[in-house]
C-alpha cells in the first residue's frame, strides 16, 4: 500500500512551498538595497549593518534571551516533576486536576493568559507588595507557567516509553530511589529534557502578547520591538533579523543532526 500518488505528492510539495516561500522571500529581501519590497535594487548588507547598530533592538534581544534561558531552565524542572507525577505516581488524588492544568496552557489564548497574569501580579503587589514593578521577573514567571506544560508533554511521552524494568533492575542491584532517578532515569530521558528546554526557550523568545501584558516600563522584549516596528509596515531591518534567526535555527538543526548521527 506504499504506492505514492500524484495528487498526494503535489499537495505535499504545495504545503512545503506554502511554509517556506515566505521565509525564503524574507531572507532574499534582507539583502535588498531598497527599502521597498517590490523593487530589487541591488545586493547589500546595509540592513544587517543597521540592525547591529540598533541599540534598542539589541537590548531587547538580550533581555529576551535572558528571560528565555531562565524560563526554559525552570520550566524543564517543573515540567519534569509534573511528568514524573503523571507517569510514576499512578492514580493519585487530584491527578485529573493536574492533567487539566497541564493541558489548558497548551491551547489557552495568549490574551487570556496575559491578562489574567497581569491581574494576578497587580493583586499580589497590592496585598503583599510583591512584585515591586513589572519586567524581567513577571515575564519570566508568566512564560514558565505555559512553557512547563509543553515540557511536561515532551518529557512525559519519553518517560512513558521508557522500560520500567530498567529502574527496577537498578533498585534490585541496590540503588535507592534517588540514586535510581539520578543514575538511570535522568540520563535516559536527557534528550527529552534537552528538547523540552529548547522548546521552552523558543516559546519564550517568541511571545509577544503575554509579555506585553505583564511587562512594565523599561522592560521591552524583542517581540515587542519587532511588533512596534512591523505595525508601521515592512521594515528591512526585521527582514535581516528574521534571516539571522533562520540561520541560527538552521545551524542548530545541523549541529543536532550531526551529533545525533555520530552517536
Amino acid at each position, binding site marked *: 500500500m506504499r504506492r505514492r500518488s500524484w495528487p498526494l505528492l503535489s499537495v505535499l510539495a504545495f504545503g512545503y512551498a506554502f511554509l517556506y516561500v515566505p521565509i525564503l522571500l524574507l531572507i532574499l529581501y534582507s539583502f535588498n538595497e531598497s527599502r521597498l519590497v517590490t523593487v530589487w535594487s541591488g545586493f547589500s548588507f546595509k540592513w544587517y549593518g543597521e540592525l547591529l547598530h540598533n541599540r534598542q533592538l539589541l537590548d531587547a534581544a538580550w533581555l529576551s534571551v535572558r528571560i528565555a534561558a531562565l524560563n526554559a531552565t525552570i520550566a524543564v524542572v517543573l515540567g519534569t516533576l509534573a511528568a514524573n507525577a503523571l507517569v510514576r505516581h499512578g492514580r493519585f488524588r487530584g491527578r485529573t486536576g493536574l492533567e487539566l492544568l497541564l493541558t489548558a496552557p497548551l491551547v489557552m489564548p495568549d490574551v487570556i493568559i496575559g491578562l489574567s497574569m497581569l491581574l494576578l501580579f497587580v493583586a499580589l503587589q497590592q496585598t503583599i507588595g510583591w512584585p515591586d514593578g513589572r519586567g524581567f521577573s513577571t515575564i519570566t514567571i508568566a512564560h514558565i507557567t505555559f512553557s512547563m506544560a509543553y515540557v511536561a508533554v515532551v518529557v512525559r511521552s519519553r518517560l512513558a516509553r521508557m522500560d520500567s524494568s*530498567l529502574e*527496577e*533492575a537498578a*533498585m*534490585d*542491584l*541496590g*540503588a*535507592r530511589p534517588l540514586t535510581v532517578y539520578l543514575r538511570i532515569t535522568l540520563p*535516559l530521558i536527557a534528550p527529552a529534557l534537552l528538547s523540552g528546554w529548547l522548546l521552552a526557550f523558543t516559546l519564550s523568545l517568541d511571545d509577544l502578547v503575554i509579555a506585553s501584558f505583564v511587562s512594565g516600563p523599561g522592560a521591552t522584549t524583542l517581540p515587542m520591538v519587532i511588533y512596534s516596528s512591523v505595525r508601521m509596515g515592512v521594515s528591512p531591518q526585521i527582514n535581516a533579523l528574521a534571516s539571522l534567526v533562520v540561520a541560527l535555527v538552521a545551524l542548530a538543526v545541523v549541529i543536532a543532526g550531526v551529533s545525533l548521527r555520530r552517536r
Partner: protein
Amino acid sequence: MDTLEVQPLNESRRLVPSPSDRRPLEPWQDPKAAPYVRIERVTKQFGDVYAVDDVSLNIFQGEFFSLLGSSGCGKSTLLRLLAGLEYPTSGRIYIDGVDVTDVPPYSRPVNMMFQSYALFPHMTVEQNIEFGLKQDRLPRRERAERVGEMLDLLRITELRKRRPDQLSGGQRQRVALARSLAKHPKLLLLDEPLGALDKRLRENTQFELVNLQERLGITFVTVTHDQEEAMTMSSRIAVMDAGQIMQVDTPTAIYEFPNGRFVAEFIGSVNLFEGKIVEIQGDDVLIEAQFGGLMQMRSLQPHPIGTPVVVAIRPEKLRLCQTPSDDGVNRLQGVVEDIAYLGDVSIYRIRTGGGTLVEMTLTNIQPRTEQALTWEQEVWVEWSPTSGVVLTE
C-alpha cells in the same frame, strides 16, 4: 528425562561457600532441613484480580527451582514478590530465616535477571556489571576484580567496552547474568532467562545455566512458561495456575505422577480416560471406563469403590499392536485416523470403537521407508497397570 540434582562440587573458585560439603541430595525430603526461602500464605491482589492466591512454598539452598505456568498464572508476580518489586497483600516472605516482607528491593540479598535483561543502555558492559557493586560502595580495586571475575566466568571479557545495543541477544543474556551475579547474591531470580533466545541457543544455554548454578552453589528461582526448559534445568518445579500452586515436585514426579488433571494435561501430552472404581485387587484397582470396558490400574492412594477417577496415560507409554498380544492387560481396539511424522517419533491418533480418540507416540527406530501402519488400519492399543496414574479430580 533425568533430573539434574544439585551436587556440591569441590570447586576452588566457588563464590559462595556452601555450609556443608555434603548436602542431602533432596533437602525437601529431609524434615530437619530449614528452607532457604519460605513463602507463607502470600496473596497479591491487583484490584479485583488475585495474581497470587494464598501461596505457601519452601525453597531450599542450592536448588534450581522453577515456577512453571502459562501467561497470567501469577508466576512472574511471585518472582517479583521475592525480589521486593511488589509487596504482598497478605502473607510473609522469609529469606534465610529473615522476614523480608517489608524490605525494599535495594536492601534484599537477592538479585534478579529480568526478562528484557534491562541492561542500562547508557552504560558499557563493564559499567553495567559494576553498577550493583558501586551501590555497595566497594573499593575500586575490589570492584574491578569482581567485574573481571564475572567477565571471565561468562566468557564475555572481549565485550567489556561495548554498549548493550552493540550486543547480540545471547551476549546480552550473558551480560545480564553477569550483572545479577556480580554481587554474589545467595538467591538469584531469573524471569524467563531463555525466553528471548532462539531455539538452538536456548538449548545450549540451558545446560550452561545448570552448570553455572552447580558451580556457584547459588539458589536459583526461575520463571518459565516452557515446560521442556523447566524439566531440563530444575531440581524441582512448581506448576502454577490462576495464582495458585498446583503441584511442587521433581521433574520426573511431575511428569510421571501428576497429582491432578491440570498438571497432567499441562505437562506434555496425555490421554485421559474417565471412569469409576468398581473393584480393588491388592495394589490395583479395576475401573469401569466411560468408553466401555474395564481398566486395571496401579493406584498409589487408596480410593474407595465408587470413586470417580481419571486415568492419565502418556502417549509414549501405550503399545500399538496389529494383533492383540497375550500379556496386554488393558486393551482398546480402533483404527488409525491420523499419523504425524516428526522425524524422531511419529504421533498416531487412534479412533476407538467407542469414539474416543487416543494419542500415542512411537519412536522411529527404523529408517522410515515404508509405512508400517497406514490410515484406516485396524490396530490394538495396549497398556499395563503401571503405565499411567489414577487421578481423582
